[in-house]
């Protein structure tokens, strides 16, 4: 299972509830992908006594990192005797979708992010199987409804679960989805659900000058504000 969502959206709180639920039946392993620092693995190991680890991407994009190590992670979880592996993304890029074919994709968004947030995170939402909206106990009824409408605009039939993840309210609908999640096949055959953004230019290999005139490869000018790159 891949859990994605922006920083501080409540991914770890949702995952802890998932572990509590899944732990009744399955042995769960947990992997956190982050850039320079993460503590969630220690927290989860201490609280649940399950195999938990982290990996830092450092200079690499964390979602790129996640894509690279997926197969290794599945083998690690198997060696640990786990039947479920939960991968938590760093949650930095709203365009990458680290979700995998054959593995449940869970998107976690905080309702505090504002009613336009779902529109800004469209790819992260549309490629997921279920969208968990956290911290709904803190916002007004009106904003809750508009937030939901906003998700529906991005993905009309998205399964939306609203929760106060610390208390675990409303998560029974997520558990239903977890309980009927598909069994992931051979780790070597996993595929990404979406295509990651293009990233092949001289910035990607370390050139620090700003401005498109200083670079070559996939470049953009201010006027080229299109979502699709059409080549130079």
């Amino acid at each position, binding site marked *: 299972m891949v859990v994605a969502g922006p920083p501080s959206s409540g991914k770890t709180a949702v995952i802890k509830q998932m572990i509590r639920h899944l732990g009744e039946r399955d042995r769960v392993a947990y992997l956190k992908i982050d850039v320079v620092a993460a503590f969630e693995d220690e927290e989860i190991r201490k609280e649940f006594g399950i195999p938990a680890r982290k990996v830092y991407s450092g200079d690499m994009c964390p979602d790129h990192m996640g894509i690279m190590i997926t197969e290794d992670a599945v083998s690690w979880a198997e060696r640990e005797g786990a039947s479920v592996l939960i991968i938590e993304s760093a949650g930095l890029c709203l365009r990458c979708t680290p979700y995998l074919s054959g593995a449940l994709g869970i998107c976690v968004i905080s309702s505090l992010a504002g009613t336009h947030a779902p529109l800004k995170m469209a790819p992260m939402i549309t490629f997921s199987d279920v969208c968990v909206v956290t911290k709904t*106990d*803190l916002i*007004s*009824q*009106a*904003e809750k409804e*508009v937030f*939901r409408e906003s998700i529906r605009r991005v993905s009309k039939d998205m399964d*939306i679960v609203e929760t106060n993840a610390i208390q675990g309210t409303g998560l029974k609908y997520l558990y239903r989805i977890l309980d009927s999640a598909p069994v992931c096949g051979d780790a070597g055959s996993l595929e990404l659900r979406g295509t990651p953004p293009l990233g092949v230019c001289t910035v990607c290999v370390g050139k620090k000058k700003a401005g498109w005139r200083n670079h070559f490869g996939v470049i953009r000018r201010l006027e080229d504000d299109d979502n699709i790159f059409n080549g130079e």
Partner: protein
Amino acid sequence: MRFSDGITVTVCPGRNRDGRPENFEPIDIAPGDTLSIVGPTGSGKTAFINDIEVFAQGDTVTGRRVLVNGEAPPDEFVRNPARKPVAMITQNTKCLMDLTVTEFLSMHVSTRENLLDNAVGEAIDLANHFTGEGIDADARVSSLSGGQTRSLMIADAVVISDTPILLLDEIENAGIFKEEVVARLKRRRKAVIFVTHDPYVSLLSDRRIVMRGGEVRSVLRPGGSESEALERVRQIDCKMAEIRERIRMGEIIGGVPL
């Protein structure tokens, strides 16, 4: 099922913290009812209203079941905030958006179908009956006081959400006219459940649910037996409000004001 037709919610017993069955007759909550939930901190008050908020079906820590018109409600009632027959308003509930009162309420109206044109005006008018600090239609929601915000949210739930049941979690310190809230919600056939430590709110309610150790210990129906106490507590409450106002205006309170 339309909300305005009125629904009855029934809370059925679950288990206490030691896993023993709770011993109370199922509690019916019908349109116009006023209940308060009382008990020490940690006695299970919040768990009780959370059960109602999520329409528990034996799947929360308390094991209670909450029925709508005698049956388990459809998923839609729980999952879609626009269809949910319950609105919970707590001290934590906030309007995050930087909008005016009118824009905020209009935004809510825009997600609804079949609303009267004057819903925004009606909601502001109702909110102004709940608070002494006037709410201006052009004021920014983010600049409202705690009392104004709570008043606006209650009015929003009543007029725009048209929610049959309101759960108000410890809102007594927010500076709202409690008696006015109780009377107007009753007149509009809304049920209201207070989680409260406030004697006046407790005495204003038709029923008191007494919590202890995670279970419903008893359900009191004082009838008229507390009317003298209610009157006295009302006077004290008024007096307290008056003193609060004088302190706010910078007065020295000499003598014994009560």
